[in-house]
């Protein structure tokens, strides 16, 4: 039971890193990133490939984050200045192309078979100890990310992105270019997603392309919307709700084994889809109320 909770805690932490980045992008700045999973994927593959080829894990994790950030840059250059939904579509396409590349370039990524035997982060310890240390690491990184977000919120940068979310044209009328701020936010969010991807790869030890479908992106969207967009505490709450839902559906399979896993996958997809619709229509401010009081 304890091991189970620690495992959930690690996954929740990885999701939280993803959600904090997306919350910075959408919740605080109004940037519609539908391709978050693409950066997660780049981080996971980069770190996994480097580590399986002998690069120290600490270095490969950092490289994963950096690679995700590097990949975000050209995407931002092309589409961040345009209408907000153009970036949404372009980023969604981006994440699908990332998945296509890791599926197709078998010589590098082993294609659909995936990469097995990704080294653990802490070598030479028992698996129980591994989980404990992993949990500690993820929590420390989450804490750092939260502190970074808090600093941003209180900084002149935070003020500007809030202004951008409120009214982009007014920001332009003051001689400031929203695209520059959006780009920084895109890069930072991608860095977080890339690091989260690396943590994920090293923790579960095996990655394959079908773990990086757009559905992951929209699970994160659901988490930040439910928690209340723009709020750091809301993001934490949203991730907890999401994990409860995902684990709950797994638990349901345990008590009702006659439901096949593919059906359960459809049910998860349907519930997230339904929730996205219902929340945008009836409760865009999330479960906890107005996002201005963050």
């Amino acid at each position: 039971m304890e091991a189970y909770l620690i495992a959930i805690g690690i996954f929740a932490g990885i999701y939280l890193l993803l959600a904090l980045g997306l919350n910075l992008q959408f919740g605080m700045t109004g940037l519609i990133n539908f391709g978050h999973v693409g950066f997660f994927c780049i981080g996971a593959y980069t770190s996994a490939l480097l580590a399986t080829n002998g690069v120290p894990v600490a270095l490969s994790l950092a490289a994963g984050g950096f690679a995700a950030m590097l990949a975000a840059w050209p995407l931002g250059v092309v589409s961040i200045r345009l209408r907000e939904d153009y970036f949404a579509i372009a980023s969604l396409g981006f994440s699908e192309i990332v998945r296509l590349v890791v599926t197709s370039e078998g010589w590098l990524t082993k294609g659909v078979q995936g990469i097995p035997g990704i080294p653990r982060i802490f070598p030479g310890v028992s698996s129980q100890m591994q989980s404990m240390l992993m949990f500690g690491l993820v929590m420390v990184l989450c804490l750092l990310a939260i502190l970074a977000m808090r600093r941003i919120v209180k900084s002149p940068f935070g003020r500007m992105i809030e202004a951008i979310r409120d009214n982009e044209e007014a920001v332009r009328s003051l001689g400031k270019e929203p695209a520059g701020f959006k780009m920084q936010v895109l890069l930072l969010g991608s860095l977080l997603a890339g690091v989260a991807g690396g943590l994920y790869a090293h923790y579960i030890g095996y990655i394959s392309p079908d773990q990086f479908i757009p559905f992951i992106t929209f699970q994160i969207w659901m988490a930040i919307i439910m928690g209340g967009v723009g709020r750091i505490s809301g993001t934490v709450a949203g991730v907890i709700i999401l994990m409860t839902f995902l684990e709950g559906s797994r638990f349901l399979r345990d008590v009702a084994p006659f439901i096949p896993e593919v059906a359960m996958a459809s049910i998860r997809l349907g519930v997230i889809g339904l929730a996205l619709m219902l929340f945008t229509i009836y409760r865009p401010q999330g479960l906890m109320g107005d996002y201005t009081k963050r």
Partner: protein
Amino acid sequence: MTLEIKNMTKAYGGLRVVDDVSITMEDNDIIGVIGPNGAGKSTLFSLVTGFLDGNSGSVTFQGKELGAASATVRAQAGLVRTFQVPREFSHMTVRENLMAAVPDQLGENLLNTFFRPGQVARQEVESAAKVEETIAFLKLSAVADVPSGSLSGGQKKLLELGRALMTGAKLIMLDEPFAGVNPVLIGELSEKIRELNARGIGFLIIEHDLGALSKLVHKMYVMDRGRLISSGDPAAVLSDPVVREAYIGGGVT
């Protein structure tokens, strides 16, 4: 010459919303642009400030042809507009709105935010002092920490003027600053504009409220259906029969 608008034209399909409009402005001028609804005044503003691309025409500001410069670049050059419907950053307080307008902030870069917090903080203190002056000047102290979305229409107009001031604008283009503002505040706003003008800031003002405007401006232009139909000294313009015809025709009292 501060501003020279030359043969500005904007058409949607066959409809010429702004038709061959030319306006020149000397340093330190206060110029008014009036005209009935749909005359193309706000479109003209958007063309001059780079929020819309014109079909033809040019804008020269302080001796420099602006060409295809973006709205951001024009504002940085000192050509700053406000909006007919105020676009305050509604979730932010008055003070935060003004702070956001300060140009060249170190803290607008994430790297500085994390790695040069001291310098950022020092600059914030300087900016805050300037913002304090502007708040006092515009008499917004009572609402300085109120979310700007909850201000009255007149206060929002003041706030937009304040933001424009904070950018260090050399020419401020006000889009209907008196619309929906109570008479007392109109008087005060006019007074502020005169004071700022005395400090060297030019104003180009679109207005419906002819009474307040004619007392304020040095020169007035009249637009109707996209074209300039009259210009000159306010008193002369207001007694121009062509202008009276346009206004009565446009159904505006």
